């Protein structure tokens, strides 16, 4: 019993080295250690064990470990991520791509501008006259289109509505004009399809890069 009082138990010495004693207990124990060679030796042995265990190395996996793991893993890609990736791939990542997109977007302006310029070279056509005619067509077209859209909405049978709308549009606008518009849209559609093909089908040039680790 007196021995217990004079010397801390091995458990307390272990707890001291582990650092789990309270400040008060640690102070009491340290005051004992100053004058007790036996307990100092015991503490040193615990410290040696702790140091030896702490020095145990971490093991390196063999080369290609991550690749072998990933071969067995299914990466789930939510639809939001897939849509985001699709949008990212539609955005050009080369100067050539941007030139094509710019050309695609500016083509209608060029077509309209060229047509206007050509019309203005005709002797009988003035700018004011052209504006008068075009604005008239535009107004009539918008009104006619709005009327047709309203009628289409009012119709219950979809196919019938579409057919009536198209025939009505042809009747009010004229086949020649519609043909010209359709030709322009056909060219633009082919161009946009080609741009989509170039951006979607070819391998993406933006790749995720990984740090290469020497294992």
């Amino acid at each position, binding site marked *: 019993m007196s021995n217990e009082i004079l010397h801390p138990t091995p458990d307390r010495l272990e707890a001291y080295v582990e650092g789990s004693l309270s400040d008060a207990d640690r102070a009491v124990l340290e005051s004992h250690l100053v004058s007790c060679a036996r307990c100092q030796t015991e503490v040193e042995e*615990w410290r040696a064990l702790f140091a030896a265990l702490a020095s145990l190395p971490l093991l390196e996996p063999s080369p290609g*470990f991550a690749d072998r793991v*990933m071969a067995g893993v299914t990466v789930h890609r939510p639809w939001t991520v897939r849509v985001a990736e699709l949008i990212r791939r539609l955005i050009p990542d080369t100067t050539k791509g941007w030139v094509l997109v710019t050309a695609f977007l500016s083509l209608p302006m060029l077509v309209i501008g060229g047509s206007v310029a050509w019309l203005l070279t005709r002797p009988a056509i003035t700018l004011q006259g052209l504006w008068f005619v075009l604005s008239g067509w535009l107004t009539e077209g918008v009104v006619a289109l709005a009327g047709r859209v309203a009628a289409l909405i009012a119709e219950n049978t979809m196919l019938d509505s579409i057919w009536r709308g198209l025939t009505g549009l042809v009747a009010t606008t004229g086949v020649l004009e519609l043909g010209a518009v359709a030709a322009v849209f056909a060219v633009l559609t082919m161009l946009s399809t080609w741009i989509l093909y170039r951006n979607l089908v070819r391998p993406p040039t933006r790749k995720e890069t990984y740090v290469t680790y020497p294992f």
Partner: protein
Amino acid sequence: MDYTKLTDQEVVAHARAGRESGYRELIERYQRPVLSLIYRLVRDRELAEDLAQETFIKVLNALDRYDPRYKFSSWIFRIAHNTAIDQLRKREVATLSLDGSPHADSPDSVEASTLVAVSEDETPEEYAASRQIGEEIERAIGLLRPEYRTAIVLWHVEGRPYDEIAQIMEVPLGTVKTYIHRARNELRKHLAHLRC
């Protein structure tokens, strides 16, 4: 994508969003600790690597079931521990393998199964001395019960607190403390011959 400043939970969120780089970051963070823990349980280099691979495949394929309120490390260590314990139950692996797998039957397989540790720059003498001490410690750990090995490695090598070790091993906190206390005392006995 620079993952170095992200927490495990944030990296998991990236992986769940479908980014393969997130999965690879989790492997990079835990491949050494997981392999080391499993190796110290089964003590066979080749087998440990197979089980570590199995652990990662289980964890990464079940990421959608991971609850971010808990530590990712606890989850992956628990699966690693259970995977290794299951293997030990199937097959007795009792011989220390610092010098190769006990099941290696050719020089090539011995070499392939030999432990390769991450070591600091050392002189040949220091390397030999530290290797000998390391071998003795590994051998002594190998003499412990498997649950003692897990507890002692997680506390001393991984620096995990008692409560996390209890979560990993799915035992009460007091049991973990008992495991570690008994394991240390056994290790002291096994390593007593090293004292000068």
